[in-house]
C-alpha cells in the first residue's frame, strides 16, 4: 500500500513538524511494516513551470513523428520539441526549463534537435519520478493554473509517499482511512472516519430504478449494493489531483469511472466495480455459478468457473468474479453513459479461494482476502457516486441493496489478561481505554470484559487478539525484559553429538562441507546409472518444482555433491574433497490430504496416519573426492585421490562413531565394477565407496577417476555404542611375527585377515597387512600377502614355543578357510 503523506494529512491532523520518516516510525511502532519513504520527484532541481501549448507543428521528416510546439510559460513563448502525441493546442503542460535537472541527473539544456532549437522539455510522469506513466506528457486540468506558475505543488513534487507491506490481519490498513486511524491513535489526535460519513446525494429517481439486485448466497455475499447513474458524460476525464494521487499510489489513471472506483477504494478500503449498465440484461445478482461456464475477465483471460466460485451475474450469465475482477463484456468504455456501481461485502475465504484457483490477485481480492469493513459498502459507494456526478455529470437514479442480518460477535477477555501475557502491570482502565481507541466497544461492566470489535477489524476474534491491541498501544518497547527459568535440559542428543563429530572429523581430514539443493533430474540419475528399482532412484516428486528439469527430491546425496564438484572445477578448483550430511527422501506420497480438527489434539491414530503419509527420510552422509589429494611440491610428486581415500573416509565415519564397518566387494552400478566396496553393518549394506564408473565421470563431466562414498548415517548412529568399554592395556612384552601367505586372487584380503585372527585366538593383539607381492615365485592368479602379527599375553612373557604354536594355528586356519600357503 502506497500512501502519500499529503493525503494522510488531509484525513488526520498530524503535527506539521512531522516528516514522512517520523510518520513512518509511528506506523512501524503500531505494527505496520513501512518499507520505504520516498519523495515524489526527488531529484527534480530548478524550474518546473506550467506552460500552455499555443501551437503544434507536426514534423514528418523523421523516423518517428515529432512535434515542434510553441509553449507560453508566463510572458515568454518557447519553442520546444516533443515526441509525445497525447496533447492538443491549448493544453496546460509541465515544462522543465533549461538548467532544470531531472531525476537521474539529466540536465535540460537549450539544444538543437530535429532541426530546431528546443528551449525546454515537456515532461511525463516517469521523467519527473512521479509515477510509471509514460504514455505521454502530463496534462494539467484546464483552468487549474496559469502559464508560468510553479508546477511543483500542482504535480505533488516533493510529497512523500510511504510504502507499507500490509500483513494479512490488517486489511483495514489497505486504505488511507485505516492508516489515518492508526496515526490518530499514535498522535493522540481526533479522527473523523470518512468511512462513516454518508455524503449527500441527489434524491433517488424511483421511476427509473433498475431491477433490484440480489444475493443468492448471503454467507458468501452478506451485503450487495448497486447505485445507478445515467446520462454520464464518458468524455470527461478525472481531475488532475485525483490522477496525481492514483499515480502516487502506484495505480494508472484510466478513465473517470475507473479512476473514481480506484480512488474511493484507496481512500476507504472498499473495492468497487462499475458496470456499463447498457450492456447488462436484467437484474444483477451475486451467487454461485453452476460450474463449467466461462467468463472472460477484463485482463482478456477466459476463465472456466467452478461451482465453488462466487460470481456476479445478469440474466445472461456471469459478468464478473465477485470481489476479484469484472468481466470484459460489461466493462465500461469510452461510450458508456449509464453506470451500475457495485459495492459489496464478500467472504474473505471465498475470495481467497477464488483468487487462488484463478491465479488472479487484484487490488480488490487482496482487500477482500484480508477482510473489508462489513458496513462500509453504502458509505463508499455514496462517495464514489458523488465524485462521478461531480466530475462526469449525469443523473443519479438511486441504490438497490440486499443485506444479511448482522449479529455482533462478543469476545470475552479477563481484564487481567493483557497484564498476564505481557508480564507487566496494566490497569483495567488502560485496557478499556486502549480497546476504545482501536474502535472496540466494551459492553457491561463485568469481568471478563465483553468486547465488540469494530466492523473493520474482522481479525479481532479471540481474547489474544485484544491483548495484542492493548500491548501494541502501550508499546512493545515498554514491555520489560526478563529471563525465564527454563526447565533442566538434557543437552545435545546422542545423534546430534554424533553428527557434529562426523562433520568435524571429515573437515579435519580435508573435506569441505556443502549444503546442496535436494532437487534432482532423471538425467542426473541416468548419468549415475541408477536403475529404476534401486532405492537411490528418486520416487518422491514435487507437484510444482522450480524447474521441470528437476522434479524429484533426492534419494542419494551424490547428484548435489557432483554438481558442486563440477562447479568448483569450472571455477578452477579441480582438486576437491566435498562432503554433505543430509536427508534423502524415499517411498511414495499418495492419497488424499489428512486434515484432523485443529480444535483439539489429534488422536494417536490421526497422528500416526499423518506421519505415515510422509515418505521415509533417511539421514545420509556422502563425499566426493576428485583430482589430487596431495599436489606435487618440494616433498615429491602429486598423488591423486583414489578408491582407497573414499573407502577410508567411509570407514572413518564408522570409526568415529565406535563402529567397525565390514568391507566387501560391492556392485553399486554408479561405481567402477572392480573398484567398488560395500560397507556392511551387522549383515546389512549401509553404503558404498570407491571409484565412480568411468561412464558416470564422462556423462557428468567429472575428472576421470573421481571417487565417492555414501553411508546411511542414521543407521550407523542407531548402532553406535552409547558407552564404550575400556580395553585391557597389556604390559607384558610383545612377540612379533611376520608371515607371507600366497593366496588366490579370488580370496579377499579381509577374509585372510579374519582367518588369521580366528586361528591365532586371544593371544593375537593385532594383525596388519604390510605388503602385497606378485611376481616370480608366486603362481599366476595369486598374490603374496605379508602380515605383521603381534602377540601378547596379559599375564606373562610368551615363550618362543608358545608364539610359534599360535603363529602356526593362524597359518593353519588361513590355509583351511582361504587356501593360503605359507611362502
Amino acid at each position, binding site marked *: 500500500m502506497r500512501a502519500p503523506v499529503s493525503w494522510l494529512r488531509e484525513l488526520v491532523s498530524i503535527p506539521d513538524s512531522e516528516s514522512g520518516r517520523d510518520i513512518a516510525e509511528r506506523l512501524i511502532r503500531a505494527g505496520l511494516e513501512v518499507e520505504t519513504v520516498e519523495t515524489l520527484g526527488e531529484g527534480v532541481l530548478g524550474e518546473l513551470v506550467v506552460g500552455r501549448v499555443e501551437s503544434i507543428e507536426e514534423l514528418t521528416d523523421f523516423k518517428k513523428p515529432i512535434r515542434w510546439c510553441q509553449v507560453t510559460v508566463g510572458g515568454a513563448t518557447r519553442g520546444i520539441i516533443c515526441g509525445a502525441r497525447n496533447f492538443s493546442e491549448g493544453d496546460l503542460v509541465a515544462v522543465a526549463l533549461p538548467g532544470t535537472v531531472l531525476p537521474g541527473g539529466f540536465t535540460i539544456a537549450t539544444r538543437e534537435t530535429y532541426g530546431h532549437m528546443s528551449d525546454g522539455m515537456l515532461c511525463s510522469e516517469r521523467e519527473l519520478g512521479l509515477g510509471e506513466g509514460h504514455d505521454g506528457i502530463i496534462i494539467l486540468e484546464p483552468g487549474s493554473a496559469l502559464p508560468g506558475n510553479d508546477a511543483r505543488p500542482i504535480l505533488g513534487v516533493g510529497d512523500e509517499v510511504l510504502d507499507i507491506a500490509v500483513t494479512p490481519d490488517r486489511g483495514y490498513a489497505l486504505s488511507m482511512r485505516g492508516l489515518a486511524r492508526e496515526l490518530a491513535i499514535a498522535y493522540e489526535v481526533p479522527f473523523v472516519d470518512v468511512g462513516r460519513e454518508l455524503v449527500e446525494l441527489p434524491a433517488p429517481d424511483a421511476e427509473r430504478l433498475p431491477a433490484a439486485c440480489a444475493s443468492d448466497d448471503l454467507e458468501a455475499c452478506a451485503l450487495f449494493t448497486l447505485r445507478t447513474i445515467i446520462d454520464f458524460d464518458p468524455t470527461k476525464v478525472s481531475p488532475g489531483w485525483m490522477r496525481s494521487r492514483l499515480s502516487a499510489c502506484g495505480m494508472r489513471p484510466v478513465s473517470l469511472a475507473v479512476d473514481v472506483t480506484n480512488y474511493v477504494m484507496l481512500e476507504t478500503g472498499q473495492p468497487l466495480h462499475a458496470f456499463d449498465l447498457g450492456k447488462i440484461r436484467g437484474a444483477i445478482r451475486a451467487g454461485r455459478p453452476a460450474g463449467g461456464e466461462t467468463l472472460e475477465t477484463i485482463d482478456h483471460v477466459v476463465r472456466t468457473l467452478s461451482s465453488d466460485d462466487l460470481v456476479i451475474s445478469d440474466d445472461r450469465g456471469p459478468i464478473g468474479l465477485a470481489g476479484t475482477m469484472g468481466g470484459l463484456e460489461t466493462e465500461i468504455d469510452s461510450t458508456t453513459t449509464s453506470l451500475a456501481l457495485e459495492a459489496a461485502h464478500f467472504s474473505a475465504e471465498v475470495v481467497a479461494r477464488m483468487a487462488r484457483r484463478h491465479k488472479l490477485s487484484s487490488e480488490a481480492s487482496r482487500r477482500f482476502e484480508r477482510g473489508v469493513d462489513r458496513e462500509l459498502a453504502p458509505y463508499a459507494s455514496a462517495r464514489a457516486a458523488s465524485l462521478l456526478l461531480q466530475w462526469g455529470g449525469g443523473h443519479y437514479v438511486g441504490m438497490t441493496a440486499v443485506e444479511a442480518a448482522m449479529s455482533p460477535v462478543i469476545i470475552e477477555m479477563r481484564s487481567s489478561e493483557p497484564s498476564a501475557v505481557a508480564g507487566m502491570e496494566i490497569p483495567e482502565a488502560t485496557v478499556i481505554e486502549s480497546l476504545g481507541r482501536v474502535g472496540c466497544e466494551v459492553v457491561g461492566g463485568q469481568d471478563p470484559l465483553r468486547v465488540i470489535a469494530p466492523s473493520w477489524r474482522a481479525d479481532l476474534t479471540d481474547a489474544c487478539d485484544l491483548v495484542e491491541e492493548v500491548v501494541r498501544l502501550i508499546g512493545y518497547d515498554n514491555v520489560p525484559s*526478563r529471563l525465564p527459568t527454563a526447565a533442566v535440559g538434557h543437552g545435545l542428543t546422542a545423534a546430534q553429538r554424533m553428527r557434529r563429530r562426523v562433520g568435524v572429523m571429515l573437515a*579435519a581430514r580435508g573435506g569441505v562441507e556443502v*549444503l546442496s539443493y535436494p532437487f534432482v533430474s532423471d538425467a542426473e540419475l541416468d548419468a549415475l546409472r541408477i536403475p529404476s528399482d534401486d532405492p537411490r532412484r528418486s520416487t518422491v516428486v514435487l507437484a510444482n518444482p522450480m524447474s521441470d528439469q528437476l522434479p524429484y527430491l533426492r534419494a542419494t546425496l551424490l547428484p548435489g555433491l557432483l554438481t558442486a564438484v563440477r562447479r568448483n572445477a569450472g571455477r578452477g578448483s579441480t582438486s576437491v574433497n566435498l562432503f554433505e550430511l543430509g536427508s534423502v527422501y524415499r517411498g511414495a*506420497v499418495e492419497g488424499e490430504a489428512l486434515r484432523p480438527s485443529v480444535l483439539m489434539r489429534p488422536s494417536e491414530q490421526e497422528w500416526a496416519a499423518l506421519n505415515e503419509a510422509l515418505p521415509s527420510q533417511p539421514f545420509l552422509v556422502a563425499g566426493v573426492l576428485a583430482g589430487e589429494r596431495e599436489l606435487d611440491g618440494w616433498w615429491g610428486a602429486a598423488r591423486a585421490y583414489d578408491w582407497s581415500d573414499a573407502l577410508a573416509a567411509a570407514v572413518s565415519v564408522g570409526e568415529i562413531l565406535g563402529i567397525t564397518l565390514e568391507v566387501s566387494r560391492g556392485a553399486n552400478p554408479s561405481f567402477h565394477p572392480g573398484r567398488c566396496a560395500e560397507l556392511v553393518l551387522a549383515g546389512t549394506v549401509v553404503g558404498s565407496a570407491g571409484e565412480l564408473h568411468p561412464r558416470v565421470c564422462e556423462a557428468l563431466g567429472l575428472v576421470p577417476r573421481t571417487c565417492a562414498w555414501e553411508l546411511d548415517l542414521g543407521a550407523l548412529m542407531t548402532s553406535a555404542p552409547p558407552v564404550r568399554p575400556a580395553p585391557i592395556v597389556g604390559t607384558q612384552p610383545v612377540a612379533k611375527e611376520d608371515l607371507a601367505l600366497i593366496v588366490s586372487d579370488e580370496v579377499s584380503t579381509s577374509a585372510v585377515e579374519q582367518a588369521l585372527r580366528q586361528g591365532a585366538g586371544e593371544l593375537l593383539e593385532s594383525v596388519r597387512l604390510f605388503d602385497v607381492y606378485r611376481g616370480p615365485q608366486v603362481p599366476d592368479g595369486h598374490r603374496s600377502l605379508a602380515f605383521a602379527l603381534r602377540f601378547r599375553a596379559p599375564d606373562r612373557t610368551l615363550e618362543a614355543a608358545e608364539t610359534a604354536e599360535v603363529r602356526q594355528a593362524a597359518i593353519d586356519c588361513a590355509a583351511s578357510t582361504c587356501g593360503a600357503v605359507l611362502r
Partner: protein
Amino acid sequence: MSAPNSAFDPKQVAALDASAIDAMVADALAAIAMAGDLAAIKEVRLAHAGDRSPLALANREIGALPPAAKAEAGKRMGEARGAIKSALEARTEILELERDERALVEEAVDVTLPVDRAPLGARHPLTTLMERICDVFIAMGYDIAEGPEVESEWVNFDALNVPPDHPARTMQDTFYVGSPESGVVLRTQTSPIQIRAMLERPLPIYVVAPGRVFRTDELDATHTPVFHQVEGLAVDENITMADLKGTLDHFAAEMFGAGIVTRLRPSYFPFTEPSAELDVQCFVCRGASIGNPDSSCRTCGSEGWIEWGGCGMVNPRVLDAVGIDSAKYRGFAFGMGIERTLMFRNGVTDMRDMVEGDIRFSQAFGVES
C-alpha cells in the same frame, strides 16, 4: 698395560727424572691442544697415553728404581698421566660438541617451505552457525528439537492456525509433494517443529529447532528456494512477553556481544498473538550511525537496528490444536533465518555463496563461523 720391570736397572733411571716427565707432559698437552677433530684426538691419545707412549715406556722403569725412589717416581708418574687424561677428556668433549653442532647445522631446513600437503577442510558456516545458536540455548536449559523436511501440510499450516484459504498460505510459496492435494509439502518454515515438540514432549517445553526450509523463490543474491531457520519455543505456566524479550536479549548478547539488545515491533503471524518483528541492535555501530552521515554504517544501513526475525506469544488456537490447556499454559516462539544471520553477522554479500558449495567460501570459515 705396561709390563713391570723385573730387575733393578740403575742405568735407565734418567727417563724418570722430573724434568723428563714434565717435558713429556708438555709435549702431550701441546699435541692435545693442536688436535683439530676427533680423529686427531684419537691419534694424540695413542701417541701420548697409549701403551707405546713415552710416558708408558717411562713407567715401565719404575720397577727398576731403588725402593726408596719408587714411591716418588710413582707419584710423579701418576700426576703426569692424570694431567694428560683430563686434558684429553676436556678436548674430546669440546670436539664432540663441535661435531654435534656442525651436524645440526648441516641438517637445517628452510622452515618457511609450504607444508600444506593435506590442508584442513571446513564445515559449512551455516552448519556451524546453527550449532553455535543451539549451544547458546543448551546453556539456558533448552533441548534441540527436530522434524522432517517433507512435512504434513496439517503440521506445517493447519495446526499453526493457518487454515486452507488463509492469506498467510500465499505469503509463503509452498512446494507441494506428489500433488497439490496430497497434504504433503516441503516445510516452509521450522514452525512445524513446534507442533511436533508440543505433541511429543512433556510439559514444560523449552526447545530450539534449527533446520532446512523450502519456498518457491528463484535463487538470486538475496533469495534461495532452500534455506535455514532456527525456531525457539517455550511453553510453561506463566510465560510472558517479558520472558520472550529477556530470552531474545540474552540470545542477541551471546551472538553479537555483551550489551546488544533486541527490539520488538508489532506484526502478524498466524501462530502467535501478540506477534512481533524482531530487530537486533547493530553490533557494529550500536546505533551511532543513526542520523550521522559522517559515520554511516554498512551493516545496518545507518538504521541502528537490523531485521532479524519474528516472534510472539503462541496463539492459544495452536495450543488447542495440540491439546495443551491454554487456560493453564502459555508459550512464546521466535524464529530467524540462518542465511540472513550469517549475511549480516559475517558480512556475506551474496546468497549464492552459501548454496553453491564453492570450497573457497567455506574454507574461509574453517570449522567455526
